[in-house]
């Protein structure tokens, strides 16, 4: 097909073969996120020791963008500290809402997602995994 599509290779690759799928047996942290507009759901389970994300799995009932975002996120946050992961999440969220075209280096691997930011209706799809991540970070603080 020659039509230009928002579904580029890297995105589709993550959507078709998502990384770190499923759920951890006995996670240290667990959060779910829900998209009321379409009913999509996501569950994130994390194994954390000494503040470092040792393992991470996402169980997604959602569209390809939601799936790809979860897959990319898991790639990015593994071996990072929870604080670092939360920071990335905040920067990512900002890059979706700001007009700013400069993308921070730490988000390099998320470019295929950020490229879709003008599709406002899909932002919630992208954000689902990150919402769950921020929820986990909050749980950890209290």
């Amino acid at each position, binding site marked *: 097909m020659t039509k230009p599509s928002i*579904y580029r290779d890297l995105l589709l690759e993550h959507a078709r073969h998502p990384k770190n799928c499923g759920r951890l047996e006995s996670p240290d942290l667990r959060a779910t996120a829900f998209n009321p507009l*379409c009913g999509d759901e996501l569950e994130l389970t994390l194994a954390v020791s000494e503040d470092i994300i040792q393992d991470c799995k996402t169980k997604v009932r959602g569209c*390809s963008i939601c799936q790809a975002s979860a897959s990319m996120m898991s790639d990015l946050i593994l071996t990072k500290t929870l604080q670092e992961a939360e920071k990335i999440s905040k920067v990512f969220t900002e890059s979706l809402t700001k007009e700013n075209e400069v993308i921070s280096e730490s988000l390099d691997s998320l470019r295929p997602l950020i490229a879709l930011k003008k599709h406002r209706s*899909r932002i919630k799809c992208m954000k689902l995994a990150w919402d769950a991540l921020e929820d986990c970070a909050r749980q950890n603080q209290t």
Partner: protein
Amino acid sequence: MQNSPLTAKVRKDFPILKREIHGHPLAYLDNAATTQKPKCVIDALVNFYEKHNSNISRGVYTLAEEATEIYEDGRETVAKFIGAADSGKIIFSRGTTESINLIAAAWIQPKLKAGDRIIVTEMEHHSNLVPWQLAAQTSGAELLYWPINLESEKSGIGSLDLQKFEEMLKDATKIKQGIRLLAVTAVSNVLGTVNPIAEIVKIAHSHGVPVLVDAAQAAARMPIDVARWDCDFLAFSGHKIYGPTGIGVLYVKNERLEEMQPFQGGGGMIRQVNRQTSTWADAPQKFEAGTPPVAEVYGLTAAVEYLSDIGMQEIQQHEIELTNHALKRFAEFNDLELYGPQDINSRSGVLSFNLRNVHPHDVAQVLDESGIGVRAGHHCTQVLHKRLGIVASVRMSFGLYNNTSEIDLLISELDRCRQLFIE
């Protein structure tokens, strides 16, 4: 492009159809969400604001007289459109949702007692569910669900079985349960099911149960006749019948009108205001607090006249033809699951489906890349979607201006989805 005679005639009336989407002509197939506007409706708005704009009722100067006339003439046009004997039964609201909330607050809430039941069907839109939930909760009442047929029973998949309804009513009588209302849609915004309202009302009334009809989908798709249907309440939205946003209609039968408490308080709905208490204007003004959407009423009037000129019968016929074509094309593929009746006699041109193993969001997004607008999600019917065992679906819904080539385009573009998402 293959056009039915109607389509050829009307397409030029809709300016938005000239728009290109990603280099393709717009194929707008989301008419169940909202319809596009013919030029006469847009012109009416412009004309109002450029010539007659003023507040109504309390002004004696020329513009105010004109605006008042526009507003009250609109009421009469709408009354005729739905077969209401007089315009005094027509209340203008902001939409179907507000119309239904009005009845929930001003009519059922004050009379609802603990243990009472309101019957709804499993195919209702959230706007015809949540208002009743809210009303029920404050008084200890509950919702009773009239289930849809899922197996291919005699009424077909996604239909309502009248016998089941009679049984529900009889069971309620046996245990002396008060059934205060049946709230039912005339046409499902997901399944496309056309419900036999006249028969349903007859059964309900024979058990003393008033009926509210959600005509949000029906009003643009078939002739409506509240006198023949004999329903107690009927609600619809301007924006779904080729009129402007911000305007809706509520029809109320006289007996019910008399039972209704005020809805919102404010200017225009009062008779006398004292320091602690007030008295109310007569219906329909009693239920129209605040400056009404006069321009929107003028636009709605233009839409109703436009539809009446074409004829609701002809519009219905056109939709049947499109639906027939779509049903035939859908049957070609075994990875397409269509929800709702297969029988053309019990459905209209709202078709929800899923492409196996592709998420509805992704289907809709890929279709957009070819200029096709369809909706993906639960279409404000989470209860129905749960019943169908799905989370979301893709919905294609027809309007006056659609043609069979647009359906064919959609079907062929589904191939792109398969290629992208299913290896």
